[in-house]
C-alpha cells in the first residue's frame, strides 16, 4: 500500500509497523500517514487489528504481556518508542469503548489527569475542569453537580465526561476506540458533533464498526483487512468521500456495501 501525504501535515506516521502477540502476528507492514487537525476513521471487519493499531499509537499495547513490535510509529516525526511513555500519553489521549469514569466526583474525574501531572493550584484546576467540560459539551449539564459521582451520569454523559477527562490533559491527539458503540443513537450523534468541533484543535483517530458513522463523521478513512495468516493490514486509505462513493479496491467496495463473504 503506498503511503501518501494527504494534506501535507502528517501528525502520525507508521512505517513498516508490525506487531506480534507472542508468536502470532497481529499487524503486518502498516504504512500510513495520519493528517493533523482532521478526523481519520479506521474501519474493517472484526479481528483485523484496528484496535490493536489504535492502541499502538499510545503504546497501550504494552500492558499486554508478550507483545512485541517492529518498525516505527512517529508522532511529529519523533519515534514514540524512544520517548517516555508517560510523556507520550500526555500528548496522545484515549477514549474507550465503554465509558469508564472513575468512582470519583465529576470534578475529580476531569482533574485527575492534570493532578497526576503535578498541577495542584486549585484555581487553575477549576479553570481546566470548566474548559474541558465545555469543550466536551457537558458543562451546562453538570456545572451544578460537580461533586456528584461520575457514575451517576447517563451513558452518553459518562462518555462525554471521559472525553472531557482526556481533554483536560491538553493532548494533541485523541484516539477513540468505538466511542459511541455503547450509546443510544441520540448520544451517538452528540458525540459525532462534538468530534467535529474538536478537530479544529486536535487530531482525532477513531475506530468504528459503524460504516454510516465513519461516512458521516470522518475526513479520511483507513480500511483494514485480514491476510490469510490472520494478520491485519491496510487495504485502502483515502478521503472519506472517495472511499465511500468510489473506492479503489474491490475488497473495500465489497466491505462497505455489505457484500463481504
Amino acid at each position: 500500500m503506498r503511503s501518501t501525504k494527504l494534506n501535507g501535515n502528517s501528525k502520525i506516521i507508521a512505517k513498516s509497523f508490525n506487531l506480534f502477540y507472542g508468536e502470532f502476528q497481529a499487524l503486518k507492514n502498516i504504512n500510513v500517514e495520519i493528517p493533523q487537525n482532521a478526523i481519520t476513521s479506521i474501519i474493517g471487519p472484526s479481528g483485523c487489528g484496528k484496535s490493536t493499531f489504535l492502541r499502538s499509537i499510545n503504546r497501550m499495547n504494552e500492558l499486554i504481556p508478550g507483545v512485541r513490535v517492529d518498525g516505527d510509529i512517529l508522532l511529529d516525526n519523533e519515534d514514540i518508542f524512544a520517548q517516555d511513555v508517560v510523556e507520550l500519553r500526555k500528548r496522545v489521549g484515549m477514549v474507550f469503548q465503554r465509558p469508564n469514569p472513575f468512582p470519583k466526583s465529576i470534578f475529580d474525574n476531569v482533574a485527575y489527569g492534570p493532578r497526576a501531572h503535578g498541577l495542584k493550584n486549585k484555581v487553575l484546576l477549576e479553570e481546566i475542569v470548566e474548559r474541558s467540560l465545555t469543550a466536551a459539551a457537558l458543562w451546562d449539564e453538570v456545572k451544578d453537580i460537580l461533586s456528584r459521582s461520575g457514575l451517576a451520569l447517563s451513558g452518553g454523559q459518562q462518555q462525554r465526561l471521559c472525553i472531557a477527562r482526556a481533554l483536560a490533559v491538553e493532548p494533541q491527539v485523541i484516539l477513540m476506540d468505538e466511542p459511541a458503540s455503547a450509546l443510544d443513537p441520540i448520544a451517538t450523534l452528540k458525540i459525532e458533533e462534538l468530534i467535529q468541533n474538536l478537530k479544529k484543535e486536535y487530531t482525532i483517530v477513531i475506530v468504528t464498526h459503524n460504516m454510516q458513522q465513519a461516512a458521516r463523521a470522518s475526513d479520511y478513512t483507513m480500511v483494514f483487512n485480514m491476510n490469510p495468516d490472520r494478520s491485519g493490514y491496510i487495504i485502502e486509505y483515502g478521503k472519506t468521500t472517495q472511499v465511500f462513493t468510489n473506492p479503489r479496491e474491490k475488497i473495500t467496495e465489497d466491505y462497505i456495501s455489505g457484500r463481504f463473504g
Partner: protein
Amino acid sequence: MNQPLTKQRELIRLKKTSREFKNKRRRFSQTIAFAIIWTLGITAIALLIWIIGYVFIKGFPTINLEFLTTRPAGGFDGEGGISTTIVTTIYLVVFTIILAAPLGIGAAIYFIEYANEIKNRNRFAAWLIKTARTGVEILAGVPSIIFGLFGFAVFVSYMKLGFSLLSAGLSGACLVLPVIIRTTEEALLAVPESYREGSLGLGATKWQTVTGVVLPAALPGIVTGIVLSVGRIISETAIFWVTLGGSYRLPQNLMSSGRSLALHVYMLATETRAFDKAMGTSAILIVIIMILNLAINVSSKYFQKRLIGK
C-alpha cells in the same frame, strides 16, 4: 376424525385431569420442599438464638459499671472486673493490625499490580512469586495454635521477648497476614481493568494509578478484610495463651504481658469458680463482635453509595 364427538370430549377431559394431577403433584412436592427448608432454617436460627440468649441471660447480671471498670483480681473466685482485659484487647488489636495491614496490603498490591511484569522476564522471580502465593494460601488455613507455637518458639523463647504484647502482636500478625493478603488481592482483582487503562491512558504512572484509582476503588474489600482480621484477633485464645501470658495487670509497654478478653473467659472458666463472670465476659465479647459486624455493614453500604453516586 370420524370418532364420535363423545370420545373426543372424553380424551380432552382425560388430558385435562392428567395435567391437573401433575400440577397438584408439583405443588405438593414444592410445599414439602419449602417445609423442609423452613424447618432447617428455623432450627439454625433457633440454635443461634439459644446460644447467644443463654450467654446473655447468664452473663448480663454480672455486667455493671463496676465490672467494666475494675481490674481482675485473680483468685479462685475470679474477683474483679474486666477493665484491663478490655484495654489489653484494644492494644493487641491495634498493634497487630499496625504490623499486619501495611505488610499484607503491600504484598497484595505487589502480587496483583506489579508481579506480572517480572513474571515474564525472570523465571526465578516467577517461581518465587508463585511459591509465595501458594504459601499464603496454605497459611490461611493453618490452625492458629500452630502460629501460637511458632510465636512461642521464635518470639517468646528464642528472641527472648517473653510473654508480651510484642510477641503476641507479632504472632497475631502472622496469623492474620494471609487473610489480609487474600482479601486485599480479591478486592484489587475486583477493580475493573478499565479503571487502570483509563488512568494510564491519561499519562499517570503505575504507582499513581494504584494510589489514585485502584486502592480507592478496592477500599471496601480491604476494609472488610481488616475488620475480619480484627474479629479474628478478638476471638483467638490459643495463640495468645502462649504468647501474651496471663497477667491481669494493665500493660505498660510493648514488653508487658497481658490478658485479652477471650483469654479471660478461658481463664475464668477453667481456673475459677466464677462461671457467671465468664458468661459476662463472653456476653461483652459477643456484643463487641456484633458491633464490629454492624460496622462492616454500615461502612460497606457507605462505600457502595459513594462508589455509585450519592
